[in-house]
């Protein structure tokens, strides 16, 4: 259990709260009281999310915290029209991105006169009219946050269209030549308004959209959404279906980390390593297709279970070859000094920064932070028996690569265990899950999953079988927050692709 100096824990602080689902407690209070509580929570809990939702008496602000030692979430709600005594991000630096978003979406100032970056709206938009308030409909062709670059430095603009097969993103690299001084990111070119689109839709449609939030992480995001819906509607998932979901989640993690190795090969100019990793990536995708019928594991989940089972024989037959090739690739890479040297010290994140910015997944684990929902926030006891989370200390690109490699090994072990040990698995087209028509509500649920990039969170409200409010918080949203910090940490220009490949985040997930 994570204890602060006062010996308090998140569980104790949440004691007075109500609970609408296992592992989630809710507290409701004034903004002033919430400000006090947040100051107590900051050192002992991880800030996971902040969003605004419409409620009966106007808009409400919701903060979500979690405890990475003992599991469990705390949802803190306060009225939006009361402001915090001090800007939240002064106590919780991780919340700055959300503060900026809330300002643009809802017109809420952080308080204390703190300036906000414009992260969504372009400076060319003549109004600061909030996007979600009536009449707010201002998206134009250029989306950049305004800032000043002075002295010897210049801002090298890169994007939004970048290299072949890269996602759109504006990266302003501030440099005097070789050394990187600063970096500005504008990530909302790809904003598709997914949360907004889900409102009024069926749960099946919401799941379809959640899968396409990040195609390279479709299972993880869909799983978090399915779990949120199941929590809201009290739908139980059969153990066989639950393990099948975890199986798909681990297959996703394997191809994701292998994809990162391919990108690292390209970024370091190691063509042979890149080619070997790409061969392995294609093998992973083909194995996904043989096991579940889709290279990126789309259309697999549904609220209440899975839509189809795995072809276990096909999966089983591919695992050994995959593992052998993977081990030989990693051994070759680590024996290549020029490769290891480039990764070492590139894009370093300290453990302290990782805590402060609320980082999740492999990026946090590579900086020495023990956070893995598969260990602490298990939804079902059937799945992750004997699970061993990965951890490194250095926080640089090499540490992230090593964490990725360790996670592939662990995922392969888990998959093999599930496939070969006779664990009940969905092995055929699934019968319609109970509660198919998803009637009922209004109700709310929080869903989570340890996706290949870390914790994904979904807060869902359902009324009469349809989504009435949705908030998606993919892992990418949290971890991009550390990308510019990582670039600032004594890097040169050519380190940028290496740091990006070792983070291996998606713009799609951030921009939603």
């Amino acid at each position: 259990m994570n204890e602060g100096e006062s010996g308090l824990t998140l569980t104790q602080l949440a004691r007075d709260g109500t609970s609408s689902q296992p592992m989630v407690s809710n507290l409701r209070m004034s903004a002033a009281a919430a400000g006090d509580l947040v100051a107590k929570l900051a050192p002992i809990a991880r800030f996971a999310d902040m969003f605004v939702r419409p409620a009966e008496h106007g808009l409400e602000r919701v903060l979500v915290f979690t405890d990475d030692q003992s599991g469990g979430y705390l949802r803190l709600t306060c009225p939006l029209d009361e402001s915090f005594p001090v800007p939240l991000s002064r106590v919780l630096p991780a919340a700055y991105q959300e503060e900026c978003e809330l300002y643009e979406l809802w017109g809420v100032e952080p308080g204390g006169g703190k300036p906000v970056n414009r992260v969504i709206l372009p400076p060319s938009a003549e109004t600061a009219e909030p996007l979600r308030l009536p009449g707010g409909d201002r998206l134009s062709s250029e989306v950049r946050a305004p800032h000043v670059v002075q002295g010897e430095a210049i801002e090298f603009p890169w994007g939004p269209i970048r290299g072949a097969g890269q996602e759109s993103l504006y990266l302003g690299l501030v440099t005097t030549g070789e050394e990187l001084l600063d970096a500005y990111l504008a990530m909302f070119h790809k904003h598709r308004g997914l949360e907004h689109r889900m409102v009024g839709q069926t749960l099946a449609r919401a799941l379809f959209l959640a899968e396409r939030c990040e195609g390279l992480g479709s299972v993880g995001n869909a799983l978090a959404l399915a779990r949120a819906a199941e929590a809201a509607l009290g739908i139980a998932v059969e153990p066989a279906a639950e393990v099948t979901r975890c199986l798909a989640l681990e297959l996703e993690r394997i191809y994701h980390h292998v994809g990162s190795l391919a990108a690292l090969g390209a970024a370091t100019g190691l063509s042979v390593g890149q080619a070997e990793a790409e061969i392995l990536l294609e093998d992973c995708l083909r194995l996904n297709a043989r096991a579940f019928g889709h290279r990126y594991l789309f259309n697999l989940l549904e609220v209440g279970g899975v839509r189809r089972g795995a072809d276990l024989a096909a999966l089983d037959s591919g695992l050994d070859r995959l593992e052998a090739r993977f081990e030989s690739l990693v051994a070759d890479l680590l024996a290549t000094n020029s490769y290891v040297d480039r990764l070492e010290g590139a894009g370093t994140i300290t453990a302290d920064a990782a805590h402060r910015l609320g980082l999740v997944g492999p990026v946090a684990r590579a900086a020495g932070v023990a956070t893995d929902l598969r260990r602490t926030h298990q939804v079902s006891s059937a799945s992750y028996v004997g699970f061993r989370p990965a951890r490194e200390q250095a926080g640089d690109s090499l540490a992230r690569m090593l964490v990725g490699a360790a996670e592939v090994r662990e995922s392969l072990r888990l998959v093999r265990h599930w496939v070969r040990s006779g664990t009940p698995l969905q092995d055929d087209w699934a019968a319609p899950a109970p509660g198919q028509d998803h009637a009922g509500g209004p109700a709310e649920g929080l869903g989570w999953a340890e996706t290949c990039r870390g914790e994904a969170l979904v807060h869902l409200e359902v009324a009469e079988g349809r989504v009435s409010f949705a908030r998606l918080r993919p892992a990418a949203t949290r971890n991009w927050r550390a990308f510019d910090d990582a670039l600032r940490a004594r890097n040169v220009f050519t380190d940028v692709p290496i740091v990006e490949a070792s983070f291996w985040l998606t713009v799609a997930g951030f921009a939603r």
Partner: protein
Amino acid sequence: MTPTARDPGALPLAGAAHGEIDAAAVRLKRRSQAVLRRSLHIRTVDTGSCGACESEIRLLSSPYYDFHRLGLFFTPTPRHADCLLVTGPGCRAMDHALLSAYEAMPAPKVVVAVGACPLGGVFGADRYTRGEITDVVPVDVVVPGCPPSPLALIHGLLLALDRIEERITLQEGEQ
């Protein structure tokens, strides 16, 4: 439209596909050299994809598909591009960038729309997305799938060469 197990993105690629790729390789290289008297250069633009289409595009240059041997190359600048490979549902914030890239390309040029997104199959037209990218740039070839597999993309590029050939013939006829 919900993609089903029947769409190309969902088709497992059998080992036999290699023969198919090789045959396509020979045809494509001969064609690009006959038509352009050089290789075909491709610029990619993401207008809000989920990232899976990009992953398949990146694999075009991987050893399994190795599209360089077909005389196909990515280019970092639209000024050298014959073909614009567009993914995503046409996020409005990308309108300007997409149109600039298209306008910077020399004629004859083709646009290949990749996946269900730019066809309006995933998102409709609203204040965030165009739904169909034809509102911004003219589309010559569509490659359906969510995402289309690298093989389907190669097929699409073959069709793109057809369009370029038609355009060259037309130009020469006018001269």
